Structure formats: structure tokens, C-alpha cells
């Protein structure tokens, strides 16, 4: 990582500014995810509504990141690491925006689920999964802040655990549905929630890969471990 300053100090300020926006976005997304999972488990409608409302702020930040990057490219013609910072920041912002949408969707489904019988143990499992994914997201963003390739690589590895949690939940929901068809509605919602949280994990992996690209100039080549193969016949 190049620690020298630009001769044009305004260039440094612009680059730092846009990175700060992404880090801020990351903080909001982490909070939205954990709040939404909490709202689901505690049946806290007010909290769920707050998560839904907060998503506008995340979207606005993404738009701001894109504007700033556009301006940076047009006015500064960034090269090498600077160019990678701009591209990476845009991609990370896009990933975070998706994660924000998933958190908002979780909050929305929690409001629906509040009107149904609870499925035993499900919301707790989902909250544990959300916490795990939130940690991955935090690590991916920390890796971005510190240009930490090792931490980014470990995020890629850990996404497998999330995939396994999802597969386990999938089987659990299937069992509940087979036991009692009245669970089907709730379990369908819960399943979408689990799948969306699993997608947040994938975005954390994408962010980690972008960090590796940012720091080394190359995307990681070796395939990451996967464990999300859901066998439909096997419960």
C-alpha cells in the first residue's frame, strides 16, 4: 500500500472522503442487519419500522458514493492504486446497498411473521446466523480499511460456515412444514429470510475479494470453499 501523499492534496481528500462514505455505509448496514434480526426475535415492530426507514439513508449514501467516484474519475484521472480504490469503492457500495435491502426485507417479513404463530427455535437460529454474517461483513470492511489481505482471505473461507448454517435451517424449516402444514406460511417467510442472510454473506465475500483486488491488483484466483448445496431429496 502506497502511503505517500499526492502532490495535489485535494486528491487525497477526495479519495479519503469517498472511502469514509463507504465505511459509514457499512456501519449502517451492519446495524440494520442486527436490528432486523433482533426485531424478528423480540417481535419488536417499532424496531422493524426503524430498520425499514433507515434503508433510505443507505441508498442515499450509495448514490453519493457513485457521484463522488464519477467526479473523481472525470477530474483526477486516477491510475493504478487510486483507480482501484475508485472501482473498489463503487463495487463495495453496490454490495452494501444490496445488503441493506436484504435487512429491510427481513424487517418487513418480521412484521408479517409477528401476526403468525412462532416456529419453535427458528428466530433464534436466524439471529445467530445474522450475527455470524454481520461479523463477516465487519471483517470485510475492516480488511478494506486496513488493506488487510489476510483478513479478507479469512472472510472468504468463513463464508462456508454461513452456507452450512443456511443448509441446516433449510432442513429445519422443511421438517416443520412436513410436521404441520399450518407452519408453511411462516416457514416460507423464514426460509426467504435465511436465504437473504446467506446472500449477505456472499456479498461480504465479494467485498473481501474486492479488498484483495485493491491491495494486490488481482482478484483471488483459487475458488473459495462452498457448502450451500441443498439436496432437495434429502431432509
Amino acid at each position, binding site marked *: 500500500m*502506497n502511503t505517500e501523499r499526492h502532490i*495535489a492534496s485535494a486528491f487525497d481528500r477526495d479519495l479519503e472522503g469517498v472511502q469514509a462514505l463507504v465505511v459509514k455505509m457499512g456501519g449502517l448496514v451492519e446495524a440494520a442487519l442486527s436490528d432486523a434480526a433482533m426485531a424478528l426475535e423480540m417481535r419488536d415492530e417499532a424496531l422493524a419500522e426503524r430498520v425499514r426507514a433507515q434503508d433510505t439513508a443507505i441508498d442515499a449514501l450509495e448514490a453519493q458514493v457513485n457521484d463522488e467516484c464519477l467526479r473523481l474519475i472525470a477530474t483526477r484521472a486516477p491510475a*493504478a*492504486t*487510486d483507480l*482501484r480504490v475508485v472501482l473498489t469503492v463503487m463495487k463495495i457500495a453496490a454490495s452494501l446497498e444490496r445488503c441493506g435491502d436484504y435487512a429491510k426485507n427481513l424487517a418487513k417479513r418480521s412484521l408479517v411473521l409477528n401476526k403468525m404463530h412462532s416456529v419453535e427455535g427458528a428466530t433464534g437460529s436466524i439471529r445467530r446466523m445474522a450475527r455470524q454474517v454481520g461479523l463477516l461483513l465487519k471483517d470485510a470492511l475492516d480488511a478494506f480499511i486496513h488493506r488487510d489481505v489476510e483478513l479478507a482471505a479469512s472472510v472468504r473461507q468463513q463464508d462456508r460456515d454461513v452456507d452450512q448454517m443456511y443448509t441446516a435451517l433449510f432442513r429445519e424449516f422443511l421438517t416443520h412444514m412436513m410436521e404441520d402444514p399450518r407452519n408453511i406460511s411462516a416457514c416460507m417467510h423464514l426460509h426467504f429470510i435465511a436465504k437473504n442472510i446467506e446472500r449477505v454473506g456472499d456479498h461480504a465475500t465479494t467485498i473481501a475479494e474486492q479488498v484483495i483486488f485493491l491491495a494486490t*491488483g488481482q482478484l483471488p484466483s483459487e475458488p473459495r470453499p462452498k457448502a450451500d448445496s441443498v439436496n432437495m431429496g434429502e431432509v
Partner: protein
Amino acid sequence: MSVIEMKLEREVTADTIKIEARKVQVHYGQNHALKDVDVDILAKTVTAFIGPSGCGKSTFLRCLNRMNDTVASAKVTGSILLDGADIYDPRVDPVQLRAKVGMVFQKPNPFPKSIYDNVAYGPKIHGLTRSKAELDEVVESCLRKAALWNEVKDRLQSPGTGLSGGQQQRLCIARAIATSPEVLLMDEPCSALDPIATAQVEELIDELRSQFSVVIVTHSMQQAARVSQRTAFFHLGNLVEYGETGTIFTNPKDPRTESYITGRIG
């Protein structure tokens, strides 16, 4: 456009080496201006030399057609082969060499002659044409290649110095290519031009690449990125990094190159 086509677009058409420089050193008196430069300039390729002022890029460019011979204090060592033949061999006539390795300078410097005579001068003194008709043809084709013909065809007998700056520079390019050189050296050819004239010269450089090797020294990194397929970065008399232009500008290997192209050292 498919991935394969895009790759082809970027690729250099010929991978034959036009100029092979080995262990080139230049001293101006006590000043060690260039240190052990090894580089292969490819045929039909635009090669850009970039680097801060005083890094040795112009010095090296001037070695390629022995312009440093005209500087009394300059001492050049090492070998520079043009198509495998040493250009510093005592039997080589520097004037003949410069007809093969043409040069365009930073400031347009047309001769105080007519537009026609500016271009005709080289072919005349080198005896490249046999008749007036043939000379007319050479002048027209060079002015066309330099994208100047349409602007000057009705006033070929007007003085070259009466043209605008951008036109004068294109006239100098027409003059440089009139002796059918194999290599064209350009030392900051656009630094005195406005953006439109710059774009015209850059377009011209890209067209000339189908016939010549072009070596361009430029302070504009964007220009180097736009026009060249190979880029060499010089710093303090050393050739720091030489490689495919896209790689140099997106993922340079040497931290000094990175610092320079991102605007961290001048």
C-alpha cells in the same frame, strides 16, 4: 465486442524488435545522465517514455538517432542496434541514420520556407525522388498522412511559419516522415498545442503505427496512456519499469512507477 477482439485490439501487431538498446550510459561531462538502460523497442508499436524532468528520457530518445553527437560534452556508451546493426558504428553516417530515424521536437520548428519546400527538403537532399512529379506525390502523400493536406493544398507556396501552431507541428511531422523513416522519435510533440490539435496529432500517431515504430517522450501521462502500447518509466537516469501500457497504468510493479503515475512524486 467479444473478449478476444478486445485483446487483439490491445495487442501489438509485430513482436519483432526494431531497436535493441543494451547497457546504454550517457555522461554529460561529470553528470551521469543515463545509467545502464536496456530496452527493446518493438516494430510498429508506439512506445512512450515517461518520467519527471531530468530523468533521462529525452537523453535516451536523443541516443536513438545520435542527436547527442551534437552535444560536445556528451559521452554515450553501450550498444544500440537498429535492425541488428550498431548505430554507433564509425561507418554509420549520422545524417543517413537520422533519415531512417526521424524526429519531431517539442516546439514546431518549420523551416522559413514554403509549406511545400518544408516537406520536399528531406527527399531532395537525400535524392529520394527522380522527378518533380514524383516529389509532388511524396509531398502530397506526407501531408495527407499528417492530416494536413486538406487545410494547405491551396496554399502550398505560402510560408510554413504562417500556419497555426497545431498545423506547424503536423507540418513538422509531414517533414519527418517524408524521408520514409522506419522509426519516428517525438519529443513532447503536443506540449505547445491546444487540445484539438493534440487530439489530431495523437490520431496521427496511431495511424503512423501501421508503418513506423513511434517513440514518444511526454509529460502527459494521460497522453502516454492514450497513444502507446508500451510504456517505459525513467527516474534519476534509470529505466525503472518497461511494459505493456495498460499494465503500467493499472498495476505497475515498481513503487516508484506507482508513485509517479498516481501523482505522488514529481
